[in-house]
């Protein structure tokens, strides 16, 4: 600002100097002392050169400014004097002076200057005797003209300056409004000590102090004691650098609480004084939000970790993105070791995804999938589910895998099947005992009779009976051995269901001698089903035994049907027994559900049938009408992708 003033004044003076010099050297009037004229011009130029080195602030100083204007008025008047007789238009130079004076924007001073100028001009005119010449009136009229001109200038300048002030006031209001209504707290500080010069409403809100109270305070006192040291060193840094920012300082509130704020400070220099504009950004809400987000994140993590199943989240390229604590414990590893690795490397020590991996299925189909498989590295049987995580557009983001250790469950299940099988063998044994005891009685009896007999041909006929009985016993034992041929638990072979049905039927016939049952077999050639022989035998013997038991010799008809369907084989076991009451239909596959007397049934038979059938991906349905019989329909898929 001052710099600007200085430039203007100096340039204006150069203009005055050029015009004055021109008039002195080449004006119409003769120059009385040419050397004096040149000296004058030289001094005048020199004075302006000197001004260049005067500090800019001086130009806004009114005293300096007016001395300068008065001096120039004197100099110009002297220049006129030197140009001898003001017949020229030299007086116009006065207008430059007046313009110069008008820059002060002070009307009174301008009037004083113009008075002085007009008087000086009048004195010059008079001393040269021009007022008395024939053109005296036209010269004399120039004196009030100077005065009128300056009044006019003054008026214009003052009007402009009023207009400017008005505009300033408006813009001041505007900025005040912005200042007051800013969302951030703003404090204007005077340089040290950190005296508060102005605050906006937000600061009142943040600190709880009224503006009046704040203006009495030192800015450092607003900072909570624990952050004071940090704040002081921060302010000191700002003095050096002119501006700065801090993170999260606590403001001490009037009510004893504290507000978290970010500070940014900027120095503003105004003339001699410099101020600091301090902007406070209230972090309370932001902090609360951040805290909430952190808490909800922690909550989610806690939930994730508290689930005892092993959860992993995989990227579509099988990379482990995240696992819960159960995984870490199961695999005795650390988060760092797992995250970012391929799952099959980390969990199975393989180079490629596992063949039956449900995640592969989910990746391809975007559908959930599951599998039961053994993991040899941790010696466990796992039931693994995989679920897709999709974005808004339905694209696959990642896959979440939930894996549950079912080793113990599996073992119990196998044990249960085994114990049911043993129970079955118990029933079989008593049936077999009966079946063997009959021919055995024959053998013993006929042997006794032979011993008492003398006639050789009679003895021979008795021996034939004994032989027959012996052969029958041998048949029974053979059949028994084929039934008890215990297939290894995990061994699975292609099985012809028709053969297994025949074999099972034979066994049940041995065990349950309700011989009045007629058996109808409607076997079609069917595809083989890959399964464990022992388990399938168990399914059929259980169903056929049940059928025999419910018909209990009342002219029962057992119907066994098999046929091929598109991807499966169907086996129907029907009886015409008493049927299952409607209310029991939903329970018959439940473990330990039985209508038999204690000691006659475990209530596990149908449950085990159900479990074995579903294990092979098959289905079992039951239709029953009370009084007219029951049909079990089993379907086994002939092609299975997973076990």
């Amino acid at each position, binding site marked *: 600002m001052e710099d600007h003033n200085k430039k203007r004044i100096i340039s204006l003076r150069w203009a005055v100097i050029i015009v004055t010099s021109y008039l002195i050297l080449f004006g119409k009037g003769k120059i009385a002392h040419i050397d004096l004229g040149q000296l004058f011009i030289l001094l005048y130029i020199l004075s302006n050169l000197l001004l260049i080195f005067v500090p800019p602030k001086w130009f806004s100083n009114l005293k300096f400014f007016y001395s300068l204007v008065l001096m120039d008025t004197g100099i110009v008047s002297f220049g006129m004097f030197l140009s001898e007789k003001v017949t020229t238009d030299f007086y116009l130079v006065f207008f430059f002076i007046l313009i110069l004076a008008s820059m002060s924007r002070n009307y009174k001073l301008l009037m004083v200057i113009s008075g002085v100028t007009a008087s000086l001009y009048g004195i010059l005119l008079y001393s040269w005797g021009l007022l008395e010449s024939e053109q005296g009136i036209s010269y004399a009229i120039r004196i009030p003209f100077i005065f009128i001109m300056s009044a006019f200038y003054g008026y214009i300048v003052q009007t402009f300056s009023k207009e400017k002030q008005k505009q300033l006031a408006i813009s001041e209001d505007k900025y005040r409004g912005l200042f007051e209504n800013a969302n951030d707290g703003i404090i204007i500080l005077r340089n040290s000590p950190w005296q508060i010069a102005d605050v906006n409403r937000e600061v009142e809100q943040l600190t709880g102090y009224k503006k009046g109270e704040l203006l009495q305070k030192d800015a450092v006192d607003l900072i909570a004691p624990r952050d004071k040291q940090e704040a002081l060193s921060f302010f000191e840094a700002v003095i050096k650098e002119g501006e700065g920012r801090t993170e999260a300082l606590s403001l001490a509130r009037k009510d004893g609480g504290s507000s978290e704020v970010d500070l940014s400070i900027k120095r503003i220099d105004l003339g001699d004084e410099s101020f600091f504009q301090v902007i406070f950004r209230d972090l309370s809400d932001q902090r609360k939000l951040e805290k909430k987000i952190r808490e909800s994140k922690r909550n989610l993590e806690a939930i994730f970790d508290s689930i005892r199943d092993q959860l992993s989240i995989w990227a579509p390229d099988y990379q482990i993105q995240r696992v819960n604590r159960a995984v870490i414990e199961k695999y005795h590893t650390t988060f760092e070791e797992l995250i970012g690795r391929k799952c099959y490397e980390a969990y199975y020590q393989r180079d490629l995804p596992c063949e039956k991996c449900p995640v592969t299925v989910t990746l391809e189909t975007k559908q959930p999938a599951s599998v039961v498989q053994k993991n040899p590295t941790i010696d466990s049987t796992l039931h693994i589910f995989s679920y897709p995580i999709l974005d808004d557009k339905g694209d696959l983001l990642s896959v979440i895998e939930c894996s549950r250790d079912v080793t113990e469950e599996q073992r119990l299940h196998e044990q249960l099947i085994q114990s049911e099988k043993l129970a079955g063998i118990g029933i079989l044994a008593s049936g077999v005992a009966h079946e063997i005891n009959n021919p055995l009685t024959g053998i013993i009896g006929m042997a006794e009779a032979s011993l008492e007999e003398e006639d050789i041909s009679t003895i021979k006929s008795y021996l034939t*009976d004994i032989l027959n009985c012996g052969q029958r016993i041998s048949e029974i034992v053979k059949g028994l051995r084929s039934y008890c041929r215990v297939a290894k638990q995990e061994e699975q072979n292609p099985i012809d269901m028709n053969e297994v049905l025949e074999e099972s039927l034979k066994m049940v016939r041995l065990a349950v001698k309700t011989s009045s049952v007629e058996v109808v077999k409607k076997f079609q050639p069917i595809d083989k089903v890959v399964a464990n022989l022992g388990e399938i035998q168990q399914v059929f013997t259980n169903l056929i035994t049940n059928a025999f038991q419910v018909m209990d010799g009342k002219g029962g008809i057992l119907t066994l049907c098999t046929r091929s369907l598109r991807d499966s084989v169907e086996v129907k076991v029907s009886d015409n027994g008493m049927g299952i009451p409607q209310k029991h239909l939903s329970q018959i596959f439940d473990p330990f559900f039985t209508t038999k007397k204690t000691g006659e049934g475990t209530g596990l038979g149908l449950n085990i049938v159900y479990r074995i059938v579903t294990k092979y991906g098959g289905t079992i349905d039951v239709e029953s009408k009370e009084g007219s019989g029951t049909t079990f329909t089993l379907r086994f898929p002939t092609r299975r992708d997973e076990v």
Partner: protein
Amino acid sequence: MNKKVLVIDDEETIRKFIKIQLGKAGYEVKEAADGEQAMVQLKRDRFDVLICDIMMPRKNGWEVLKEVRLNPETSEIPVIFLTAKNEDNDMFKGYELGATYYITKPFTKSQLLFGLNTIFDRKKNSLY
């Protein structure tokens, strides 16, 4: 007069063996291969004792016994059960239904005769 025995068993060799031995002991023996045949014989003839298997096709031993006991004409006939089911439950069930004696398979000539003697001795005693 010889005592008349009806042997009911689906096992031919057993019937044959009983017939041989009881024949020697002075009984008159008739045979039936199952419960239904037995009922036919019982209608036709009077018997002093029945020797009856339990597990038989068409009509089993329990059913035969029940019918025999329900019929006033036959209700007093002693019945000896032959069974491979030597479990207590079966024995109780048999006695409950009115069986007179039990012989478990396999058995010998002497076991069979002992059973018959016991029955007839008891019957004799009860007469006096």
